[in-house]
Structure formats: structure tokens, C-alpha cells
């Protein structure tokens, strides 16, 4: 019996213009949590997709318990006990939790589904691993954290022994992350083995036993997590020193830039307002953070400001009432927006990167002459952004956005929005899915924008980012702003209380 449950030996996988995995070896011990760390585009998702059978490598062997195996597709992977939670879940939204879990492995009796047995098994698993779910709830009604539990239960129901998590924490709230970490620890105690992709070093420190580092498609090394510091890991990964905490001068806010008065947004479900009579200001030269637990109206508030959703109330930008103006008008009159959902709003995934880089500017005289697009200008502008923001992809400006790594898609959007140089930048989770090097760079850029007299409205679920970056924190709870706090005068614990609605300040 081999020491390793899974060995991926000398795996090479190429895409047009890029070697995504260049002779990579990864060995997973039974019962360990093995982290996979690397910059955006380093090839982590590709390597895991190879293991899950979604890509066929050009070179290399995969061994299970020392025996070479062929994994031609997810079904083969499943038969070998390999399961994967994708960064974006693959659940059927109008099915119940239970239906989703048994989907594809239903047991039938006389043409009818044997739901009772399945339900029993799911409930047992759910209890055993502390994965509490309501089996009869519809997926569309439960939170992202819950959906992730369903994904995990799916793997357990299939009795998978090797569990792959691709950036599972990017979409979770801090509380949910803690829960997930505990669940993962419980799973390895049961003898399962876990491969865990994350960009957050503290998470690796907290749960992982070993960590394999990739850089630009190459294998850098595998370390025992307890032997290295976070600094050392980040250096291994980016090849230079990274400043994990941003330095910034105190803000020097000046005139009011954004004034929101009595803004309300109707909720799509139920009768309550998603945003209820909210008023606040953002001044030039400050970073204001909207903090809150996901689903307390932050998204709707941002959509209303951007003009993507209907609202009541007044929005004044640079002294001008834009409450009823079109999205295009807002875009061209000083509003920038890094959207929450990069696939839904941020990118036309089937357009080349260059086209995406001018998504709100293609009609400007610089890029468009008498109704004709100016290719050369668009491509050279895009090349400039790619260079400046280190957006990595196989074919540069020509790359179809869909084929880029998640983090590089995000970098492209951030680059585009910052470079438009808006007076007010609404940045929703700007660093979601980015590696530490990229986060450092983006944070610096945001602060530079602030220091240049621009206003930034930051929405982030990440408390570190909130505390590090913001000059003022507005806490949202159930569609209302319940506190206006100074990050230097509030502790993370206190902030947590406000976010949970346990504490409230009249503003």
C-alpha cells in the first residue's frame, strides 16, 4: 500500500499560448488536508480539473493508491472516489436540497424514486459531519453557505474519499468560513483526504497539513504548513516579499461627492424593502466601507446606485441629481463599478479580453470613429492595461475572457474600472479570488485613487479588508444602515455585533 492516496506525477497540460501545468507533481496523503497555493493563473484549477477528469493532460500519470489510473471524465473520477466542489456550485435551483444530493445516483424501485432511504442516509451524514441542512428547502431559497453544504453532502453521499475544494471560501462570510474549516477537520478525522485551494494564507495555517506551491504553471515545492510562516508561503508563491498589510496615510476628505437620501429598493421576494430608507454621504478623498453580513441589502443598494435596479429616493453625484439617469449616463458622469458578480455583469465572457477592457468606453472617439470601432486603439489600450495590472492569460488581448483564470478575470475588471478614473468608484469585493500579490497591488491602487481626491465606496465581506482599507465603516443590517464607525476606534468583535444586529447606533 502506497503512502499516498493520490499521486499526480509530472502532469503537463497546455492551452493555446500557455502551459497551464508544466511537469507538476502533487502527492496527497491519506487523511491530510493538502493546500494548493499559487498566484492567479498559476494553474491550480487546471490541475484539479485534470484530477477530476475534466481535462486530459498531455503528459503525466495519475496514481490512486499507487496504481496508475485513467480518468476520462467526472464519472471515472467519481468511481475512484474523487469528488469536487467547484468554485461556483452546480446545483439545480428549483430542486430541493435532497433532490440535488441524490441527482444522478438515484435509487429506483419499480420506476419510482426511493426517496425514504435516500433521506435517511442524507440525514445521517448531515448529523455525523455537522452539515445541518433542511432537506426539503429549495436551493434558490438558501444561502450560499448552505448551498456549499449541499455540495459537500453530495460528495459524501457518493462516498467519495478524496475531496477537492476549489476556492470554497471566496464566496463565504467569515462565520461560514469558520464552520467550513471545522467541517473539513471533521472529514479528515473520518479518514477522508482533502485538496484545498485558497488564496488566504491564514486559512492554510488554520487547517492544512501540507501545502504545495505553484508559480506560473511550475511546481515550486511542498512544505509542512507548521514549519513555515505566512510570509514565507507568500514569498514562495510570488517570488518576492509581499506586504500583507497596507500602509496608508490618514484620509483627508474634502467636499461631499455622493449624497444618498432616503433610498429604498423593493425586495424581489417578500414585501419588505431590501434597502429601506437609507441615507449617507461619501466625500472626496475617503474610502467608505459598507460592511454587513451578505444579504442585508448591500447588493441591492449598489445596483440602485449603478442604475441597474429601480429605486426610490435621491442619489446626488458631484452635486448633480442622477436618481433617474440611465446607466450609460452614470457610467460617463463619474461613476465606476466593480460588480459583485464578474460573470453576470462584469464580462462578456465570449468577447476577447480587449473588447471587455472597453466595455463602457467602446463608443468614445478614442475607440470609435464615425461608428466604426478602432481596433488598433482598442487592442493597444488593452495591452497597456494587461501590462500595468499584470493580467495573465494565454493569448493576451485576444484571449476569450471565458478561458481566463477566475482571478485574472477579476483583475481585468478591476483594471478597467480603476483606469476609467471615475470620481466615485463602487468596489464590490474587489479582491475576491485574487492572490496576495494582486491584493496588495489593488489595495495600493485604491488608496492612490483616494489620495488623488476620488471617493470609494467599498463593499466587502472580508473583515480584514474592511479594517485595513476603510476610513469609515457603515454597517448594514436588514436593509438599513445601523452604524457609522471609525475603523480605528472599533474592534473586530464590536463590528461583528453591529453586523449581526445585536448592537445599533442611531445615524
Amino acid at each position, binding site marked *: 500500500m502506497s503512502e499516498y492516496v493520490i499521486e499526480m506525477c509530472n502532469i503537463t497540460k497546455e492551452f493555446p499560448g500557455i502551459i497551464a501545468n508544466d511537469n507538476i507533481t502533487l502527492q496527497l496523503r491519506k487523511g491530510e488536508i493538502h493546500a494548493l497555493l499559487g498566484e492567479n493563473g498559476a494553474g491550480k*484549477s*487546471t490541475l*484539479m*480539473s485534470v484530477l477530476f477528469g*475534466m*481535462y486530459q493532460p498531455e503528459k503525466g500519470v495519475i496514481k490512486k493508491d499507487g496504481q496508475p489510473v485513467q480518468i476520462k*471524465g467526472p464519472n471515472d473520477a467519481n468511481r475512484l472516489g474523487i469528488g469536487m466542489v*467547484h*468554485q*461556483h*456550485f*452546480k446545483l439545480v435551483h428549483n430542486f430541493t436540497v435532497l433532490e440535488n444530493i441524490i441527482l444522478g445516483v438515484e435509487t429506483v424501485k419499480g420506476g419510482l424514486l426511493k426517496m425514504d432511504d435516500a433521506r435517511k442516509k442524507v440525514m445521517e451524514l448531515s448529523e455525523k459531519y455537522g452539515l445541518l441542512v433542511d432537506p426539503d428547502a429549495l436551493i434558490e431559497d438558501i444561502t450560499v453557505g448552505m448551498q456549499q453544504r449541499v455540495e459537500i453532502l453530495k460528495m459524501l453521499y457518493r462516498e467519495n474519499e478524496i475531496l477537492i475544494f*476549489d476556492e470554497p471560501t471566496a464566496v463565504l462570510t467569515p462565520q461560514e468560513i469558520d464552520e467550513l474549516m471545522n467541517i473539513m477537520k471533521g472529514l479528515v478525522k473520518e479518514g477522508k483526504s482533502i485538496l484545498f485551494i485558497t488564496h488566504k494564507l491564514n486559512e492554510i495555517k488554520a487547517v492544512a497539513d501540507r501545502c504545495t506551491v505553484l508559480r506560473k504553471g511550475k511546481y515550486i515545492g511542498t512544505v509542512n504548513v507548521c514549519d513555515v510562516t505566512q510570509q514565507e508561503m507568500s514569498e514562495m508563491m510570488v517570488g518576492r516579499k509581499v506586504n500583507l498589510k497596507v500602509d496608508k496615510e490618514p484620509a483627508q476628505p474634502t467636499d461631499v461627492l455622493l449624497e444618498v437620501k432616503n433610498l429604498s429598493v423593493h425586495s424581489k421576494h417578500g414585501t419588505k424593502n431590501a434597502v429601506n430608507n437609507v441615507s449617507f454621504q461619501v466625500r472626496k478623498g475617503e474610502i467608505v466601507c459598507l460592511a454587513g453580513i451578505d444579504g442585508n441589502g448591500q447588493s441591492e443598494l449598489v445596483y440602485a446606485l*449603478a442604475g*441597474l435596479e429601480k429605486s426610490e429616493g435621491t442619489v446626488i453625484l458631484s452635486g448633480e441629481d442622477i436618481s433617474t439617469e*440611465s*446607466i*450609460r*449616463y*452614470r*457610467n*460617463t458622469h463619474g461613476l465606476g*463599478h466593480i*460588480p459583485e458578480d464578474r*460573470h*453576470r*455583469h*462584469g*464580462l*462578456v*465572457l*465570449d*468577447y476577447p479580453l480587449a*473588447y471587455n477592457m472597453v*466595455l*463602457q468606453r*467602446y*463608443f468614445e472617439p478614442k475607440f*470609435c470613429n464615425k*461608428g*466604426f*470601432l478602432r*481596433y488598433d486603439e482598442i*487592442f493597444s489600450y488593452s495591452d497597456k492595461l494587461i501590462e500595468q495590472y499584470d493580467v495573465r492569460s494565454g493569448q493576451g488581448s*485576444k484571449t476569450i475572457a*471565458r*478561458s*481566463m*483564470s*477566475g482571478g485574472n*478575470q477579476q483583475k481585468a475588471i478591476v483594471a478597467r474600472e480603476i483606469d476609467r478614473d471615475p470620481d466615485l468608484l463602487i468596489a464590490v469585493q474587489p479582491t475576491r479570488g485574487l492572490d496576495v500579490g494582486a491584493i496588495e497591488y489593488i489595495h495600493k491602487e485604491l488608496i492612490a485613487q483616494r489620495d488623488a481626491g476620488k471617493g470609494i465606496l467599498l463593499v466587502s465581506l472580508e473583515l480584514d479588508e474592511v479594517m485595513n482599507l476603510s476610513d469609515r465603516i457603515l454597517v448594514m443590517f436588514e436593509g438599513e444602515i445601523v452604524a457609522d464607525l471609525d475603523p480605528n476606534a472599533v474592534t473586530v468583535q464590536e463590528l461583528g455585533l453591529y453586523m449581526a444586529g445585536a448592537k445599533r447606533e442611531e445615524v
Partner: protein
Amino acid sequence: MDKFLKKEGTASFLSAVAAVIMGLLVGLIVLLVASPSNALAGFGMILTGGFSDMKNVGQVLYYATPIIMTGLSVAFANKTGLFNIGGAGQYMVGAFAAVYVGVEWTFLPPVLHCIVAMIAAMIAGAIWGLVPGLMKAYCNVNEVISCIMMNYIGLNLVNLLVRQTIFDSARNQSYWPADSAELSKLGFDKIFVAGATPSSVNAGIVLAVIAGIVMYIVIDRTKFGYELKACGLNREAARYAGINEKRSIVLSMVIAGGLAGLGGAFYYLSGAGAGIAITEELAAEGFNGIPVALLGMSNPIGSVFAGIFISYLKVGGQAMQSLGLAPEIIDIITSVIIYFAAFALFFKLMLAKLSAGKQKTNANAEPVSQNAKKGGTA
């Protein structure tokens, strides 16, 4: 960029060719079943009929003209993610408008008369596209359903109007457009002749090819094309970008309708001696736009070639009549080839889309390709 486009282009072209070969094979099988003794000779005629003499070459171009236009119409709407199945209705109302102007407005001087008739056809077709466009943009009514309704409204309205305005009871169809409204022959009748009979090909084919080229430029090179494609690929992102997606939807249906309407004008202004018959059937030229666009991979230039190919089969099929096969059988065989070819291509595209979820897409981009799949099959 250009090299990249070419690569994409070759791949599409090869799959279209593969689909055509599939279609031809199935056609041969049908022929073998329908008439074993004549099968091989007949199949040979389908393949070569369009080239048998210069007149037939002309006829190929003549029949290709309207279906190129309806094909462009389908392809154009497709860029905005819409399925224009209303080509038949748009084509018919366009045809009526052109014939009406051609018959009644004889006060216009020759060339102008023809131009006005074409403009009238375009406007009529555009209105027939406008309605489903508005319904889609503002009431979210599926364009397939409203297009089908517009097809029947168009058909019956044209029947009614023909009967009430320009009905020639002697021929039991509409009057023919006046000579002054006819499209110029451009001297084609001197080139494409067999013996003394010239082909009916005329300036229409030139205009159709120009329409294809213009459409290619509009879609590929202009700001307007950028907006339409963005709407078709990701409507939410287009909205985020500040593109007025409702306007894009409406405009793309209006233009699609105008193209199909113009196709109707090209056919009935050809001077081949055709009036609009009272009929209960939707115009085949309208529906043939769908396989044309499919075979042309929704590419305007591709659609021009696909239209010529399909018309080539039709002329080849006509040549087969000399074997004494019933016209219906010939129709069946040519349609089998057309639809099978288009269908094979459709299948291939669907498969490519499905496997794109696994192979072409990176794992990070999974969920959107999933949605695309849902959208594609819905």
C-alpha cells in the same frame, strides 16, 4: 486579430462542409428508397444540374436571391440572441408592399419606381419585425411565439389585401408589377442563357451579396455591431455597460424584418412573371432562411454561400424531373438534404457547446457555460 478570425472561420467552414456531405448522403439514401432504378442518375443530376448550362447557373443565382435575404435576416437577429422565425411573414408583407407599389404607382419613372417598391418592402418587413421586437423587449414575450403569430397574420392579411386591391381574377393571383418597377437585368440575360431562353437572374443577386457584405461590416466592425453582439452574448453585462438592450433587441428585429421584406421584393420584382398567389401556405423562402443561416454559421458571407448552395440543389432537383420522378419526391429529397445538413450542423454546434462546458471552458468559468446551455436548449 485577423489571423485569429481566419482560424475560427476555417473551423466553421469545415464543419459546414461536413454537414453538407452528411445531408447529401442521407438524400442519396432517400433517393435509393424512393426510386432505386433512377437513384444514381438522379443523384448525379442533383449534383450537377445547377451547372448543366449557363441558364441553370443563372437560375441558381435567381433562386438564391430571396433565401439569401431571409438567411441574412435570421443570422442578423441571431447576433442579438434572438431567433427570427418570422421570416415567412416578413417576406410576404414585403412582397405585397413591393408588388402593390409596382402595380399601382406607375406614375414613378422606371428606376425610381423599382427603388420605391424595394423601400416599401423593407418598411413593411421591418414593421413585421418590429412587433415581436417590441413584445420581446418590453413585455418579455418569447419572440418565437410572436413571430409565428405574425407569420399567420401576415399571410392572411396579404391574401385579403391582394384580393381587395390588386387582384387579377384572370390569373387568380395579383397583377404583375409594371415593367418600370422591375429590377434591372444588368445584362445577365445575355450571359446566363441556354439557346434562346435567358435565366431570370437580375440585379437582385448583386444587391443580396452587397447586403451580406454590408451586414458583415456592420456586425464585425462597428459600434452598433459591438452592442448587438454584447446583448446576444450576455444581456446583463450589456446593461451594465450602459447599452440600451431594449433598443438593441427592437432594432435587430426591425433590421431582420427589413432584410426579409427586401427578399420578398427581390423575388417579385424580378420580372420573371410572378404575381402573389392566394395561398394558405407560409412562404417557403421565409423558412429556408433558417437552414441558410445555420449552414452559413450565422455569418453573413457564409449565408450568401449557403443560399447559393441550397438554390443549387433546388435547380438540380428540377433537372431530375426529366427522369419522371414526381415533383413532390424531388422536393422531399432536396429538403431532406437541406434540413439534414442544417440539422447535422445544429447537432454539432450543440455538442460543441455541451463539451465546451468540460473541455474548452476553464473550471472557473463553469457556471456561465451552464447557464448558456440552459438558455440554448430552452
